[in-house]
């Protein structure tokens, strides 16, 4: 089919953003296994973009390659599966915050290479340009390189397929601007920023349809042990929050707003 794609989305899981994150020795996040998790928000945006692209190009297919502890993956799938249609490739590996990006990329590339009947000439490798748990920013790029894909774009907010089959890509650059590039077509790597799509609503009907493939994928999830590659952490800390409380009485809202703006400008 002309202009049909095989879109592989790579994603890890991260703790739900509202959770209290407390680094502990290891390093690791305190109670991370027990905290509610979500699909990494950057990668999630790429999944929604992938689904929209696939829907617009009949014959296309979306795979989600996700690495995390199997039990956690299953929990998160209860929401993700309701969003868009995809086929899951599950890797039973560690959570992402402190793993080595090189090893992670290698595991992902290996899993992608092993997808049966994947037409690499139509492959678009999607994912987040970084992760919400640790913005290494190199995982997707490395995975692409390992798969021999050298057309790579990072900080992508928009991808348009032209009538002639060329891909027009908007990448974020400094100053709130985008860089426009043209690419001949697949295969290519796209590390997405937020894209332009809202999070789709949950649809349990869609979820149940997806689960027909997700359940077996989870069952045969390959256990993955990641090599630390000599990576060691000196310290880990959450960004410091500062709190300055002042009690004021009868201060007009404009005055308060002005003060906040002045404080932010400092």
């Amino acid at each position, binding site marked *: 089919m002309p202009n049909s794609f095989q879109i592989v989305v790579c994603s890890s899981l991260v703790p739900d953003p509202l959770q209290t994150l407390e680094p502990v020795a290891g390093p690791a996040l305190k109670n991370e296994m027990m905290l509610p998790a979500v699909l990494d928000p950057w990668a999630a945006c790429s999944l929604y973009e992938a689904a929209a692209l696939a829907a617009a190009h009949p014959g296309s297919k979306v795979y989600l390659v996700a690495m995390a502890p199997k039990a956690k993956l299953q*929990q998160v799938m209860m929401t993700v599966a309701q969003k868009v249609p995809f086929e899951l490739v599950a890797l039973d590996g560690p959570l992402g915050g402190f793993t080595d990006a090189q090893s992670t990329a290698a595991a992902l590339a290996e899993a992608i290479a092993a997808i049966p009947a994947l037409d690499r000439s139509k492959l678009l490798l999607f994912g987040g340009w970084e992760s919400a748990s640790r913005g290494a920013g190199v995982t997707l790029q490395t995975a692409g390189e390992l798969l021999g894909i050298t057309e790579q774009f990072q900080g992508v907010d928009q991808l348009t397929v032209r009538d002639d089959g060329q891909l027009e890509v908007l990448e974020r650059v400094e100053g709130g601007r985008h860089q426009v590039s043209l690419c001949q077509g697949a295969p290519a790597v796209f590390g997405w920023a937020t894209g332009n799509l809202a999070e789709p609503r949950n649809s349990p009907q869609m979820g149940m349809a997806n689960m027909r493939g997700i359940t077996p994928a989870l069952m045969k999830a390959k256990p993955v042990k990641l090599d630390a590659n000599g990576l060691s952490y000196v310290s880990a800390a959450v960004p410091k929050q500062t709190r300055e409380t002042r009690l004021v009485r009868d201060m007009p809202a404009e005055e308060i707003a002005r003060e906040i703006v002045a404080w932010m400008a400092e």
Partner: protein
Amino acid sequence: MATFLPQVGAMLTLPGDAVRQILWRFSDRFDLQMLVQSARAVARGQVAHMVAAGERNTHEWTPAKQQMMEAFDKAGITAAFMEPEQGGFIAGPKNLALGLAAFELAWVDGGAATASLAGFLALAPIHERGTLEQTAHYMALAAPPQPGEDRKVRRGAFALTEPIPYVGVDTGILSGRLRVAEWNEGQEPLLHVEKRGRFITNIACADFVTAAVESGDPRIKGSCVVILEEGDPGSFDRGTPTKKLVHQLSSTGDPIFSLTVPASRIVGGYTVKDGVIVPNFSHGEIIEAVFRRTRVTVGLMTSAKLLSAVEPVIRYQRGRFRGAESIKEGSLRYEMGIQQREDALQRLVDVWASGEASASLGFAAARLFDDLDPLEREKTALLAERGIAGGRAEMKAMREVEAKAVALLSGDLVDARRDELASDPLVQYALRDAAANVLCPATKLWNTGEGTRMMREAVSLMGGYGITEDCPGFLANKWMDAQLEATYEGPEAVQRRQLTITMTNEVFLAQFKAWTKEMRAIASERPGSGACTLATAMTMWLWTLNYTQHATDADGNKLYHGQRQGVTFALADALCWLLAARCQILDVEELEARGPLDAVVAEDLPATLQFLRDLCHVQSARASGEVSRICAELVYGYNRHPAWDAEGHKACFLSDELDEYEGFIPGLGAVATDVIGVSGSHPVKAGPCAGCAGSLDFLHLQNKLATCLTGSRLAKDRAAGTVSKVMIPEALDYPQ
């Protein structure tokens, strides 16, 4: 003898979805897990925004409220009621599914949950007793459009209640009337319906109504439920909105219907006998089938409120003094706030324990109905095969089955006979039916009644903030909302009345005895679970029931009697406490068995189990206290206080008798208080102490119950310790 339990640390985080899925037994049901996530997203997103924006401050049906209904459709909540071929996604019985969806919605707002449930309530008469055509037609109308379909979803309302002086608690007396309007030879009769409704939910958006009416015409027999549609000839007047102080996201009003409809709208169809239209089902039969299931869901709505209060209260307590100049970061006062105080922690433990118990009871009831539904169909088919259909013949056949069920539980059978009975679907039906007949009203009664009382407690833990609109978790709304949940779909009196009958059913009582043994068995392995306390309280309840069924009051009147609600209702209340605490203990047992197999749960399983078990112990102690109080009142309260008359004297020592006893029981004279002198003199008070009369057996049980409380306060202390340490998210996850 001291029991040494391994020491475990405090539970690390609030129990998450993985723990709940095991406790409430849906860890292998992806369809239900998805429904939970989907309902949660609507609740904590759109619904929470509406509440925060003040949408509850109007009684009118607003565009935002209408959009909420559409959000339910899009999120699959409406379809949760439907079969897959009708556009649903859940195959098989749906009681647990609807319970979970309502729980998630009520976690944020009760009115939102009610609005979704009322649609199901309208469809339920058709679903339970409708003809095939009626079911296919109305389910299809109410099903949300499939992808690519452009169709308006039709919504329903259920109209039973009428303006005073008619149906309320007593649903038997209807003033809604059904008359023959036109009946031409060989054609479907046309019927005229006059019905006024009171407090009818969803009326503002309803396109059709299932209404209970009684015949006002000799050519129609009895009563029935009839389907009315907007657009039927006549008047479909939605009336004025009810100015309710609760659940304002749902619509409620007092409609007036005066419509002509074909007789095919009679739910379940009709036959014509000697020129008279005989509905296949009376309104009473239909309502019983409907409420039996939907009331459980209502009970779960209140459970959600209690459990949803935990996190906001902890956050409030901990942050209470932060920001004050003199309280430095890192100081105990800064970190722990009000949680430095034992009472604040322990009261929250009580709220939490009640929430757990009520959720356990409600979900157990929902699951029981899921088991019962296919068995009920099998029963009907089996009896039909034997040529038994409805009425007396069925009652007679079922009495034999019930006797088998009781025999099965007696434990006196040889293996082969036991296996035979255990695999008999009719016996299985009888067992579950008897249990469901108790668990449903118990859930509705206890979850909402005790839930409302405990919501007040939760609100008070937030101080003044608790009764503001800004209170995180909308706790004040939930407090008041819970009161409606105690009222609609049959207020507490109706549930107690039903329990009065069902809790004395011998199949239920045989199960109750087996459950008591089961608690003893759990207690022997896990003395810290509260099962021991509970088993004793269960024994006491059964003893008291038996006593009241045979004893009379001071005037010789029977104690256990349908009209004597002072006795029967009190015993019903006591039973509910026991059932809830039992279900809570069983859920934690399940977690212990299944938790190690789930990697997410396994991580902190010992501490989670310890905490949840401590809550069980706390709750069992409270439950047994209630039971002991109620039973003691019933056992002693109906005896008249002794006077200084011949009867009263029987309980006293005579002075010369005492002198005689003093010889072989030295010191007796010093402790005997009520002594009658030779001249008939007695101490200066109105009568002898009543304590002399009464049942030793009961006192023995009460004594045992008191000692069974051993360790329950240690459990509370430990649970309070966990509440002060458990990790909570940075912020509440709604409004999102």
